[in-house]
């Protein structure tokens, strides 16, 4: 068994999940691939299994937060040292996984490395979101940077690699819906440090964004509330250097 795990949340992604699994196995052969089938009604689980992934089938749809957390629970229990989240819809290019891994290892202070679409070196390349959406992301970037006292350019990116400490934290506590922004603030509260590297995202090959224009205002307000409440919540389960009992 490998020490590295790729967590692929997928909800009705039968058109893309097999290719994503195959690409991960091709680009990052050291990673076990775990697909979390988030209550799909199509053949997502079977397609992922046929492509060689291990598949955890949630009995009903939990949403991205619950699905990803299930992956972290799997990683925590399986003793994995590193986990990377790769969306099942083909947006994240698995060829970036080795770069994320070397960035995670190069900086001993960083427990989470996020693939950012907006870092200067590669900004403007790849698939671009709508202007409206980018404005929202810029707002979150400002707030998260301010709250965590460091520069965060892409807080909504779900393309993340985490080390063992972050795996343990997220297995225990992970935001429910629209979790990416909140997760950074949560990690910061546990003195888990994050960094970013530049990646290009591709247009999704199947499914559609959960964040339609009509719910984007709800998204904005909900995440703002969660981030502010989260930053005022003194939950510290994990201290640096303390091995949690669940590790055993």
């Amino acid at each position: 068994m490998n020490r590295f795990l790729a967590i692929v949340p997928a909800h009705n992604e039968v058109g893309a999940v097999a290719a994503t699994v195959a690409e991960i196995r091709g680009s990052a052969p050291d990673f076990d691939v775990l697909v979390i089938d988030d209550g799909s009604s199509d053949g997502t689980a079977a397609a992922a299994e046929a492509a060689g992934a291990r598949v955890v089938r949630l009995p009903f749809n939990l949403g991205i937060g619950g699905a990803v957390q299930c992956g972290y629970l799997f990683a925590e229990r399986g003793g994995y040292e590193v986990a990377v989240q790769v969306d099942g819809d083909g947006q994240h290019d698995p060829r970036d996984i080795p770069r994320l891994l070397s960035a995670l290892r190069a900086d001993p202070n960083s427990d989470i490395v996020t693939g950012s679409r907006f870092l200067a070196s590669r900004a403007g390349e790849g698939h671009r979101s709508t202007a409206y959406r980018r404005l929202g992301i810029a707002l979150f970037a400002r707030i998260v940077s301010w709250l965590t006292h460091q520069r965060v350019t892409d807080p909504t990116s779900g393309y993340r690699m985490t080390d063992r400490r972050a795996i343990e934290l997220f297995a225990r506590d992970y935001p429910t819906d629209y979790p990416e922004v909140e997760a950074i603030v949560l990690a910061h509260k546990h003195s888990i440090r994050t960094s970013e590297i530049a990646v290009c995202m591709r247009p999704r090959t199947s499914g559609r964004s959960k964040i339609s224009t009509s719910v984007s205002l709800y998204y904005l307000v909900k995440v703002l509330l969660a981030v502010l409440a989260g930053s005022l919540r003194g939950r510290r389960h994990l201290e640096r250097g303390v091995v949690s009992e669940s590790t055993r």
Partner: protein
Amino acid sequence: MTAYQLGLSVAHTAQTTATLQRVAVVLFAVVGFALVFELVRRRALMERYALLWLLAAVLLVVLAIWRGLLTSISRDLHIYTPVNALFAAGFVFVTALLLHFSIVISRLSEESKTLAQRLALLDERVEQIERAGSGGRGARRRAGER
């Protein structure tokens, strides 16, 4: 009909109406009480949630029968019209109840999320074990159970 007689009959009608209203309120409360009790009997409603509703029904009956209570309470609270005191109390009660339910729903979703995750992980593990020992006695027995 003299003005005096007219006045008397209006007063009489108003009093009858008030009595009828009170009877209606008591009936309403009794039906509500019975409904909640029946729901508890059928195990469709947990006792802890039923108690609040039963209490509300009892309060309603007390207020309908004991004429001066609402009037004196609202006078003490400097509320000019007694019925406004009733509305205010009802509003606060319903709002508090709704907040309580929101809290309960949040806890339930959190718990069902955890259950779904644990179940999915267990399911996958069982499948792995079955596959590893396929053909073994244990695996077949488990497969038969599912």
